[in-house]
Structure formats: C-alpha cells, structure tokens
C-alpha cells in the first residue's frame, strides 16, 4: 500500500519501527575514510531517517549486516562448545535495488549450495528489507546491464522527498504496515534507473580458453592484491576460519570465521606450503570469471549485481566494468 507522509509522520513511524527492530542503513562515518578528513559511508544502526545517507551509494555494502566480518562460531572451554546467541531483535535493512538483488546471491550460497548455514540463516530469517530508490544512476554502477536496477522483493519502500518535507512509502509487509499512523494513501512506485553511464556487455562464450587472454596479466600487473574489491562487494561471501585462545586463560578460546579475499595472499595456501593462483593476474581472472561466468554456470544467473563499488574503491583504478567489456570484445574477436 502506498502512502504520502509528512516528515514528522514518517519519523514517528520510523521511531516505532525502531522500538521493534534494529534498523541498519548506510550511515556517514565522519573522518573514517581512507585519507585524512575524508568520510566513509557504510552500514550502521540508525535511529532516525535523517541519519541515513540518501544521496550517495554506500562505500561498503549491506552484506556486513547479514554476514559479520568476524563471526564467532563457538567458544570452547576444555571439552565444551558454546554457540553465541544470535540477534536479540528483528532487523530492518535500508538498501538499494542492487543490494537487494545481492541478497539473492548471498542466500544462494548460505542457504543453499549444499548445506544451510546456521549463522547466516538465524540472522536472515529475522530481516526485513526496505528499499531506497535510485532517481538517478550512480556514476560507476551498471545495474541496468545486470538486470538488477529494479528489485521487487522488498518489504517496504521509503523515499524522502528532496524538500525533506514529504516522505513517500510503499509498505507491503503487514507487520510494518501496522505501525502506520496518519499519512495519505496514494499510489507509490519505487524510483529506479533505466539507464546507467556505465554499460557492460557480458561475454557470451567463456571457457578455460579465456585463461589465455593477456588481459589478466595486464590487469594483474596493476593489481596490488589488497582485497578492497572483495570486501566492498555485496556478493562476495568467502571466509577463513580462525581459532583463538585467550591470552589470559589458555584453556578457553573461540573459533571464528572472518571475511576472506581471493585477491589477498594466503587465500589458497594449503598446509605444507602448496598454493594455487600465485599471481595477481590469475587471482583477478578467478574473481572476474566467478562474477560473470562461473557462478552463473552453477546457479543460472550472474553473480555480479553491477553496483560498481569495486570500481570506486580500487586504489589502482582497476575498473571491473572496463575489464569485462574488454574481455567481451576480445573474446568475440578471437571467435571470428
């Protein structure tokens, strides 16, 4: 159902949501950017609509709400394991269309693909999604190319008007709707973009032959293997296990899983010293192929949602979208 609220009405509704849910949204973390006097926009708990960053894309994605960067799997004492409690409250996540499409990818890996993941599932089932529309395209995104520009699986849609005086909402979820007071019922359809500046054509016929393309080495020579592209990506899901024992009491410790990057040294290291994909070129190829080819081969749709965060965050100005377009062009030429 669509509504038009005054800002005050919307804030009151938001407050009520807040009493029932932990609300996560893109938030300005002042001074926490990479460089001096720069900020970063990433997910955090918010208590009002004003705290949400509406006018730019978050630098890091929503995935850190669903998938903690460091997740304690269990604590162990001498012969006992104890699993920490899950979230205390239900969760609302404000997110854009690309990120909502990314959730489908996260679910694919963490709820399906062999086993259901206990930790992801217990958070995921408590989450409702609130869509933030995109009136205009961000500079680096290519959601239209990836078909992720319009997400319909939202529980509610909220838009704060430019004037900051009017709030539009489309509330589909019954529980969220119950908090509505006042407002005017009107037709509301989420804003979404139909064209991006960046356009990406996915290659049609990739195979192991594509390994031979010189593009990988070329980009690999530029890549510093920092993993920013993976950490900012809403669809990257890899982690590494860590066992920790406490300094104060060696009998007690915990097992964690921590985000991992296929671009960073050590990702494929096996005990005994053997490792695979030693060069950055091979790692970059692995990542790009996974995002646009391998995942699709397994699950039927591409992994990349075209949010463009990897382009924005790369300190070496490696552009995923440019890389994919070049690959498409060159692979097509090879076929001729």
């Amino acid at each position, binding site marked *: 159902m669509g509504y038009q609220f005054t800002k005050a009405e919307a804030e009151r509704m938001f407050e009520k949501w807040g009493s029932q849910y932990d609300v996560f949204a893109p938030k300005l973390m002042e001074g926490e950017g*990479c460089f*001096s006097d720069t900020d970063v926009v990433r997910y955090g708990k918010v208590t009002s609509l004003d705290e949400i960053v509406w006018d730019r894309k978050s630098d890091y994605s929503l995935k850190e709400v669903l998938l903690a960067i460091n997740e304690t799997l269990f604590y162990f004492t001498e012969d006992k394991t104890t699993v920490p409690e899950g979230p205390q409250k239900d969760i609302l996540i404000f997110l854009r269309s690309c990120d909502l499409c990314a959730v489908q990818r996260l679910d694919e890996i963490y709820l399906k693909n062999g086993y259901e993941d206990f930790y992801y599932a217990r958070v995921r089932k408590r989450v409702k999604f609130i869509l933030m529309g995109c009136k205009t395209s961000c500079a680096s995104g290519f959601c239209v190319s990836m078909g992720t520009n319009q997400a319909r699986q939202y529980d509610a849609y909220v838009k704060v008007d430019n004037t900051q005086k009017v709030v539009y909402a489309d509330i589909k979820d019954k529980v969220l709707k119950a908090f509505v007071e006042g407002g005017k019922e009107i037709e509301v359809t989420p804003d979404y973009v139909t064209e991006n500046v960046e356009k990406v054509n996915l290659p049609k016929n990739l195979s192991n032959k594509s390994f031979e393309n010189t593009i990988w080495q070329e980009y690999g020579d530029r890549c510093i293997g920092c993993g920013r592209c993976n950490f900012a990506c809403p669809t990257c899901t890899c982690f590494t296990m860590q066992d920790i024992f406490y300094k104060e009491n060696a009998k007690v410790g915990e097992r964690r899983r921590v985000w991992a990057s296929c671009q960073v040294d050590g990702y494929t290291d096996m005990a005994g010293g053997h490792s695979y994909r030693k060069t950055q070129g091979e790692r970059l190829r692995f990542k790009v192929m996974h995002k646009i080819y391998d995942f699709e081969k397994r699950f039927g749709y591409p992994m990349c949602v075209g949010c463009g965060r990897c382009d924005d965050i790369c300190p070496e100005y490696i552009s995923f979208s440019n890389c994919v377009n070049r690959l498409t062009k060159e692979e097509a030429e090879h076929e001729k």
Partner: protein
Amino acid sequence: MGMDINTKKLKKNAFRVSKERGIGASRIRVPGGYLDAKILGMVQEIAETYGNGYVHLTTRQGFEIEGIHLEDMEQINQKLQPIIEMLEINQTDPNTGYPASGTRNISACIGNNVCPFANYNTAKLAKRIEKEVFPNDLHFKIACTGCSNDCAKVRMHDFGIIGMTLPQYDPGRCVNCQACVKGCKSLSVNALRVENYKIVRDEEKCIGCGVCITKCPTRALTRSKKKYYKLTIMGRSGKKNPRLGEDFLVWADEDNIVKIICNTYRFVEKYISPSAPARKEHVGYIIDRVGFEEYKKWALEGVELLPETIVKECVYWSGIHFD
C-alpha cells in the same frame, strides 16, 4: 643624482639589494605555499611592469620578482596590496608593503588538500601560525609537513610541525589481511604485529604516520578524531653548525604548538645578544648559549599539554661543527 636609500629599512620591507647597483628584488610571502591562481597574474604584471620579466620561486614558497628599480619600491608596494590582502597577511599600514621580513614565510608541503599520506591541512595551519607570528623582525623559520615523510624538510627549521594520527583499531572489522603490517614494515617503522589474528601496535615505536590506515581495506584502522602533531625544534642550515631539528613534543595538539612558538618569541626577546647585528641571532644559537632547560621553562609557560603528549626531558642536537 646619487641614490640615498636606507637598506636596513628596505630589507625589513621585504625588498632585497642585488648585485647590480640600483636594482633589487621584491619578495612576496605565501603562507603554506597555497594561493589563489589569480595572484600569479598579479605577480606577472608586477614582474613585467617593474622587473625584468623574471620571477624566482623561493625555497620558502614565496616569489621574488627580479630586476626591479629601487626607486619604484613605493609603487610596487601599491601593487602588492591586493596580493597581501588576498593572502591575508598581517599589515600595519595599507599600501606600504610588508611590515617585516625577519620571520620568514611559513612553508608547508601540499598537505591533506591533495596528498593521501598527509594527516592534516598544512596550508591552514601555516596560515594560522603566520597570523600569530607575523610581522616580526626576529629571524624564525617555521614549516609544516603532513606526515613523517617530511617532504617540507621541517627538520631544517627552527620549528617543524609533523602531522600525526593515532590509529584507531576496530578488531571487529579486521580480516587479518596484514596489509597494515606489511605497509608499516616496508614504508614506516615496523610497529605492527599480529597476535591471535589481530593487530597489535607497539605504542613506543609507532610514529603516527598513518600508513596502516591508508592500507586498510575494511576501515578496521581509521584516523583519530583528534589530530596530533610532532614538534621538532632548532634545526637549521647555515655557516656555523648546521643540524637537523630534534623532537621536542610528540602527540601534541595544534593550540599548544602555536602557544609554544609564541612563547619562544618572548624567550628570544629576553635573551637575544644585544650585540647581534640587526637583531639577527638565530634562536637555536641562543638556546645553545643559555641552555635547553631555560628555554624549556619559557617555551612551556602557560602550556597545558594533553595527557598523551610526550615531552622530551632534554634535547641534544648533533650536526656538523666547523669551529
């Protein structure tokens, strides 16, 4: 008709006597080396109207307009007026040029307006210090640099201000990629290590350069909200005993640094040798004469340092001795 010029007055007015009789140069100070590009056009106009069309970019980030006729000084001062105003230089009387030249232009590296490594806005601090200390005939050289790379060579100054940041670590965001550890080791002082998959910072070793923060891919390491500075003192070049400035304060704040610089002017007023030619005895030599202990007493007068600021009990300089 012979020229009758008070060269002492001329020098204080930021002009220079040159090798060629009757010809001098006009010196323009640019605090922090940061200026509206329009000023370049004004400098060009003066150089083409009154000079020989050439300008020297000084080592202290000012301009020196060459080949001016000393009899044109008054007119040049008129022309300098908009430059002085745009750069907000303290002035006694408008249209009379610069009121002093002893305290040199406060120079700075490009700072965090542009540079990814810089820990603060160096030009802004340079300007603030300029406002506090200028005009003054006492010979002081002060410079600001954004980080421990010290691109501004502040250790060759009486006062050097080096930007620092205190790394803030959120272990919950750390993925143990060790980019910070590698960065600190290869680019800085190797103050980081890994313990239980998390980063441990050796507080004694850390110089607050911020390299680890720029390397962190997840924002587990961020800058402190508070900006910190290292104050190095009494570096100098020169004929007697050139030497690098030594650390006086580490993890200091901006206000106290400004206060200490101002206090040092009072110290010099008190102790400068009465026989110093044109009151030109460098502060470093004065401290050499009266002792660091006495200087420190004056410098820290009324200064309430942050609890985290480290004050060096005693400072020793080395350098080259020619005497």
